[in-house]
């Protein structure tokens, strides 16, 4: 069918017309099929030009328009707006870039630039002729979220979501909330206790009717996609069906457990981990006593389970432990008399304001000794004494030894094992085995599974402040998607021609976003696009053996007609 296409060639005030002969371009394309109207304009983007286009579309009842001007990045939204204002489908608009990719790129050869511009405009016209009206896809969404894990992060996500008007189901595996932090005493960077913090957040949760807390609970089933998930939550003996729009996964970390014999852990009774030590110093007492022995000299050994060598799994730095250990050493010194702290570290990483803790502890007289991975501190028993030996980098590699009453292994964070959840939600993990975001900077709380957001230490080691920030960021992201009650998706998505589909699994494999599902077509099983998951990348299109998949606005017809036009 012949279409009525309006073509506008822009001078861009000389930027184009100084090198590209606009009249020649017009001459060359005026007889193209489908060209109904052909104009040149000084500035296509100017207000007056835009108004003129709206009038043209209306009066000439154009089926499509082509503007040959600058880069589409600059003005596609402008001219799609023009089309929309004139009642034309925005996807019947094609922009041809004859500035950045012709006049400017070839300002050294104006004839060539003109020749190229002609072909580019022709290709644009061909594409417009094959263009189809597309409507943005709207899907209704449920403004409810399941927050998985009621540690500090999960609770903060829940509170933020509830305050923004999202219904929250807070699902906790344990019987009580607060996670690890609920067992901690004084926290660094703020004068508050872990248990107080957990309790105050729990209290806030109780105040909000739109948060439903399930303890001793887990996710047993998940169906659907972003905006509309049907899930089942088993809480105690009950199983509840819930309808939600998104997940915020905030399942936290597990403290690293030293392997047996690592720094004589499990062999010597006075070798303990940092979490054990934190508990020990929080017990009210006037003297620090461990297993009946008064503790005066404490040796902290850093990077246990973190920054491991080739043989270890954990190449990463656990981020919170340097400050946590130093903070504990300050606490223990302020609480008990005559304590000596010896820090055997691999370079202190008290980044940001946490440096002030390091400074405070040094000024307190704590002694820092630095070792490298190829010569770690040796611990041995001499009678009932425990001796730590180290080759200290800070003393030009000199061998030093000290007695210690207690050895604290500063253990890091490892990903929490949760196979059930991983199977249900299919969140990919990174090389460090923590959950992986799509993009660290652009989309730090999103996963490749649409509608499943991650926050807190299940993503990577973080301190409490960082956990809270990411938890609230995930809440903001989830709420911004769900709050309007519907989602609008770009219509440039993949489309399956069911008649041509033979249902192999090529496209299922190619799609990273779980956007291809099975459906019935004339009694056959065929593939279908789940539009709410499709991102419009088109990765699935070239893998189809029967060429049954096309990407809207980039169809075979459109691209091939462009190629044809470029080689006329």
């Amino acid at each position, binding site marked *: 069918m012949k279409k009525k296409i309006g073509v506008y060639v822009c001078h861009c005030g000389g930027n184009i017309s100084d090198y590209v002969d606009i009249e020649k371009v017009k001459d060359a394309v005026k007889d193209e099929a489908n060209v109904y109207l052909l104009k040149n304009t000084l500035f296509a983007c100017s207000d007056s030009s835009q108004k003129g286009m709206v009038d043209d579309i209306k009066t000439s009842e154009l089926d499509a328009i082509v503007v040959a001007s600058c880069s589409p990045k600059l003005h596609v939204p402008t001219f799609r707006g023009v089309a929309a204002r004139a009642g034309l489908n925005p996807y019947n608009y094609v922009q041809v870039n004859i500035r950045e990719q012709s006049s400017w790129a070839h300002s050294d050869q104006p004839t060539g630039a003109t020749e190229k511009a002609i072909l580019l405009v022709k290709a644009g016209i061909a594409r417009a002729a094959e263009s189809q009206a597309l409507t943005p896809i709207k899907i209704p969404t449920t403004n409810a979220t399941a927050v998985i894990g009621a540690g500090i992060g999960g609770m903060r996500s829940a509170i933020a979501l509830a305050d923004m008007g999202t219904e929250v189901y807070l699902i906790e595996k344990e019987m009580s909330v607060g996670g690890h932090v609920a067992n901690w005493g004084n926290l660094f960077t703020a004068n508050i206790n872990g248990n107080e913090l957990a309790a105050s957040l729990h209290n806030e949760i109780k105040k909000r009717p739109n948060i439903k807390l399930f303890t001793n609970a887990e996710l047993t089933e998940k169906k659907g996609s972003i905006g509309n998930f049907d899930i089942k939550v088993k809480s105690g003996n009950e199983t509840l069906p819930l309808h939600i729009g998104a997940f915020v996964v905030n399942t936290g970390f597990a403290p690293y457990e030293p392997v047996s014999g690592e720094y004589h852990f499990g062999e010597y009774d006075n070798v303990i981990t940092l979490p054990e030590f934190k508990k020990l110093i929080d017990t009210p007492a006037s003297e620090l006593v461990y297993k009946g022995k008064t503790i005066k000299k404490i040796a902290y050994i850093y990077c246990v389970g973190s920054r491991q060598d080739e043989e270890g799994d954990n190449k990463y730095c656990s981020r919170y432990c340097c400050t946590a250990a130093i903070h504990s050493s300050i606490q223990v010194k302020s609480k008990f008399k005559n304590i*000596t702290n*010896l820090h055997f570290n691999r370079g*202190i990483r008290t980044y940001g304001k946490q440096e002030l803790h*390091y*400074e405070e502890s*040094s*000024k*307190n*007289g*704590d*002694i*820092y*000794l*630095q070792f490298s991975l190829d010569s770690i501190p040796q611990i041995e028993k001499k009678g009932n004494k425990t001796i730590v*030996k180290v080759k*200290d980098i*800070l*003393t*030009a590699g*000199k*061998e*030093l*030894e*000290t007695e210690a009453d207690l050895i604290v292994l500063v253990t890091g964070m490892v990903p929490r094992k949760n196979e059930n959840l991983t199977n249900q939600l299919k969140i990919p993990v990174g090389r460090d085995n923590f959950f992986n975001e799509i993009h660290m900077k652009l989309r730090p709380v999103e996963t490749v599974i649409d509608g499943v957001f991650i926050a807190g230490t299940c993503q990577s080691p973080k301190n409490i402040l960082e956990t809270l920030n990411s938890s609230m960021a995930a809440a903001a992201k989830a709420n911004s998607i769900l709050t309007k009650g519907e989602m609008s998706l770009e219509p440039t998505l993949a489309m399956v021609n069911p008649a041509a589909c033979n249902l192999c699994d090529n496209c299922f494999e190619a799609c990273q976003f779980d956007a291809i599902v099975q459906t019935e077509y004339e009694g056959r099983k065929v593939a279908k696009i789940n539009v709410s998951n499709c991102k419009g990348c088109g990765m699935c299109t070239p893998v189809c053996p029967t060429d049954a998949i096309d990407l809207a606005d980039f169809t075979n017809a459109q691209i091939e007609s462009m190629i044809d036009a470029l080689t006329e």
Partner: protein
Amino acid sequence: MATINPEFGKELKKYGAFDYNACYNCGTCTAICSLSTETDSFPREMVRLSTIGNEDDIKASLKPWLCYYCGECSSNCPRQASPGELMMSLRRWLTSVYDWTGLSGLLYKSLPLSILAFLLTAAAVIGFSIRENFDLERIMHVGHYFEMIAIGSVFTVILLPNIIRMWWFVIGKPKIKVPAKSYFKALGELFVHMFTQKRALGCDNNQFRWFEHFILVIGYLTLLFTTVFLDWFSSSNLFIIILGYIESIIVFGVTIDFVSSRIKKSKEVSKHSQPSDWFFVIWLLLMGLTAFIVRLFIDLNILEQNSWMYLFHLIILAQWAVIIVPFGKWTHFLYRSFAMYMAKLKIQS
């Protein structure tokens, strides 16, 4: 293998060290020090040895004496750990370590004890004067001989054994083999440094301070010579009299500047004065000044009527000779020179 001794810090703090624990071992102090070299890098090494309490290595080290406290390390320390003051404190501590009598340490650590020592000495001089019925001539005569005897005995009984102890810690105990002839060869180093302190010239922007020190040392030593051997107070030789005047002016003139900068705390070196520092400069000032006035009174012929003046001078002199010279900061002058000497020995080992 050395044992970490956190207790050492507590002892060191009694000698004036503070905040050096704040050090995070960046090495700025060592690299900024213009006297620090690849073979003798300090002060961070000393800060580190102090932190881990490695007494033996500190005792064996000459580095505290190699520092002339320009203060650059302290003013550029990112953690404000005052490495310069730590070096100063180590010098005090080493002085007490070298001192076989143990008095040095007691005086450094305790201000009341120091004051008591000064009072006792004063009382002894006054007691002696009472016994002599304030006979000025007699007192001056004894005073003159006291000077000679004090110099001799302080040196042989206290300082010489202490220098031998210093040698033991630095060279003997660590079993450094030094050929015997080196001991003679290096003597030049000893005297050059003793009289010129030329090493202090290596400190950046230190020419004036070095010059002050230089003329002070010359002034002090020649004044000593003039009073003890040329018997300034009794001399009628015009040359000797004028020489004495000039020397004493130099001594109190330069020390007035030192005292005032300690009061103003204008330089890094004068920011953290300990009692021992005050005693040293004030007594030096008083020595020069009282000697000057005594001779002036003689020349004006009014000393007879004002014999208290000589008494005052003698008290200062006695305190200087029996407290400050053997146990106080005066020894730094000696140990510094011997440190340069022993450093040379170590190189030749």
